């Protein structure tokens, strides 16, 4: 649930006001489960730079900020992000574009090999707009109901028409499945980073683990540009992390968007066949071992043998307060290769989290496509998967480090070249999994369950920056 109606002024640890009214919404705090009707609209600015700027100026009027809403829940929210190709299409001056990070300017497609997007994940299998440079703007619409979503989309289309010449190059509807589940059947989205002055209530389990047993929240600059980050928070010279030229760098952030197709039938067949050989529990437990959480989200670190009797509620303080080195170094409770232990290792890499605290992301994923009927183990030919969206101040240090070092490769965990059993890529990359314990269980290499079908690196400008783009101040 969102707390955007909390009226207290937000400040960072050093007292700097957090300019919530200039930061786009849904980054620091999710709009909440009530907004479960989402459509991602990708626009190609084919009408030339001026028409592009006109569109951005119109969209800037619609964008929801992170400021408290006041009054009731808005019926819908609009947010805008732009790719490097989009900045070029808007006529932004080259030296301004050069002030953006290298990986953003290069784009996701050209970093495919590094990201493990090879073989069946290769960009040649992606939707064309993500490989031919025509995906310029991403407009995300979140609404309370399908009707409100349709209304907002109709309005968006009329704005696109009125500003001339633009093309909708991709449209992806997404909707949370019943019980806040994703397609494999797991409840998702529990572990988000705790941020100073923003979400400190999540500090236990969401912050940086300390040797004292405590946790501390992360600096805002890890997720929003223009504020001290973990590197500069104690800098005597009060230098800020590198960011794009003003006014673009202030209150903006980078976004990663990926369309990940899920082969649910293959996943179900694989797990149920393996469960027949699994002597330490049933299929539900084997599913939990693969992810590190039971289907309802209850962490194995707290519930190693069986899920809690009542449905797990991740919002209860302490629900995500667990570590791996206290009593589970060998992975007997939560396997060393479990998805949550790889993607958010907490203290697992030792050194009080010093090797992992700079690799955190804010995730805002949403499933797309119809649910495969319960118990079905054959594919029905329908496309389904997850729109993975995340926010971070540095795509290379945060998202890419997780994807490259922790998901695609396992060496840092002592797992050789094994990639994440749930998310990993090609067979032959050694994507097997050991479920540690008194009688260890070995999951043999499998064909992948998840395939990349498109994606892009984006920049999410602050509202002032968006308006500056609209009026051509940086063109």
């Amino acid at each position, binding site marked *: 649930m969102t707390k955007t109606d909390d009226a207290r002024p937000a400040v960072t640890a050093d007292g700097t006001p957090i300019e919530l009214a200039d930061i786009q919404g849904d980054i620091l705090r999710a709009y909440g489960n009530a907004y479960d009707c989402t459509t991602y609209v990708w626009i190609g600015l084919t009408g030339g730079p001026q028409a592009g700027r006109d569109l951005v100026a119109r969209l800037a009027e619609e964008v929801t900020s992170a400021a408290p809403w006041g009054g009731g829940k808005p019926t819908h929210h609009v947010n805008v992000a732009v790719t490097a190709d989009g900045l070029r299409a808007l006529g932004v001056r080259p030296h301004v574009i050069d002030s953006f990070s290298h990986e953003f300017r290069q784009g996701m497609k050209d970093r495919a090999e590094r990201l493990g997007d090879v073989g069946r994940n290769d960009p040649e299998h992606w939707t064309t707009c993500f490989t031919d440079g025509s995906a310029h703007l991403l407009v995300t619409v979140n609404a309370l109901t399908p009707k409100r979503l349709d209304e907002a989309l109709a309005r968006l289309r009329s704005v696109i028409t009125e500003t001339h010449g633009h093309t909708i190059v991709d449209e992806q509807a997404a909707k949370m499945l019943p019980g806040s589940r994703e397609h494999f059947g797991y409840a998702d989205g529990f572990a988000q980073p705790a941020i100073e002055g923003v979400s400190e209530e999540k500090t236990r389990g969401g912050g940086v683990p300390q040797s004292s047993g405590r946790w501390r929240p992360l600096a805002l600059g890890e997720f929003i540009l223009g504020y001290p980050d973990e590197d500069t928070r104690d800098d005597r010279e009060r230098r800020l*992390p590198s960011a794009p030229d003003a006014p673009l760098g202030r209150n903006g952030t980078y976004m990663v968007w990926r369309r990940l197709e899920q082969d649910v039938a293959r996943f179900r067949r694989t797990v149920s066949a393996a469960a027949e050989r699994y002597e330490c529990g049933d299929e539900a437990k084997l599913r939990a071992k693969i992810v590190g959480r039971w289907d309802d989200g209850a962490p194995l670190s707290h519930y190693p043998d069986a899920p809690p009797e009542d449905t797990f509620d991740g919002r209860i303080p302490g629900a995500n307060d667990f570590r791996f080195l206290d009593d589970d170094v060998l992975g007997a409770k939560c396997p*060393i290769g479990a998805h949550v232990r790889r993607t958010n290792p907490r203290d697992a890499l030792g050194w009080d989290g*010093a090797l992992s605290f700079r690799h955190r992301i804010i995730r805002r994923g949403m499933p797309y496509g119809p649910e495969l009927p319960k118990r079905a183990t054959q594919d029905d030919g329908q496309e389904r998967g997850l729109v993975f969206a995340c926010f971070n101040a540095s795509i290379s*240090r945060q998202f890419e480090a997780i994807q490259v*070092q922790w998901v695609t490769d396992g060496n840092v965990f*002592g797992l050789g070249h094994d990639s994440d059993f749930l998310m990993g890529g090609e067979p032959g990359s050694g994507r097997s999994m*050991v479920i540690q314990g008194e009688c260890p269980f070995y999951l043999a290499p499998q064909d992948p369950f998840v395939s990349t079908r498109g994606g892009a690196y984006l920049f999410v400008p602050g509202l002032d920056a968006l308006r500056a783009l609209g009026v051509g101040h940086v063109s």
Partner: protein
Amino acid sequence: MSPPVNAGPQTGTGTPPGNVNGQAIAITVFSTVKRWGVPWLKALVFNEPKLLPQTLLWLQKLSFIHFARWTLVTELPHNGAPQPRQKLRHPHLYFESNFNGGWEEYIDAFSYVLGPGMTAFWGSSYGFPGPVPTAPFKAYIQTSDLTLVASHFYAAYPESTVTMIEQSLELDGYLDELRAKVDKLSPDEFVEAFDALLAKGQRCF
């Protein structure tokens, strides 16, 4: 350079291709040392490594760092006549290290885990900005005239990291134990012994 069996991730952000072989990444940094740095480095760092026990112990524990070596260079290597002997006007600190994983993560470990040790080694070098914030430190290391491109770099096991090789050697030991007694085992005993091997070696796979 032969292509590795399994390339693993591409990890050498900011690393010239010549400094990558399979999983191993080479880093070489040449920095100019201030005059007072020579006695400091000789007395405290090189001759009395016990003064930096924590740094050295931690360096060994960071398994993605294969090795790290600092050398004080006061004159150019002499290969005989007609090359004149040449003493350097300023001494230089020559740092070489091999590691696997990401370049940024490697420097992060230096900054966040080994910070005081890094100051001991590089504090007397011109331009050293301190180990934290790590961004200027990374820029310092990456500055082109400090980071050298290897003309020859060879990895015996390009598909493996040090962690993997150590795990393989550990597993090999367990296999030797089983091999030594396998002839004397009944089928049931073999199953038991093999399961015991899997349990013992589960961290090696």
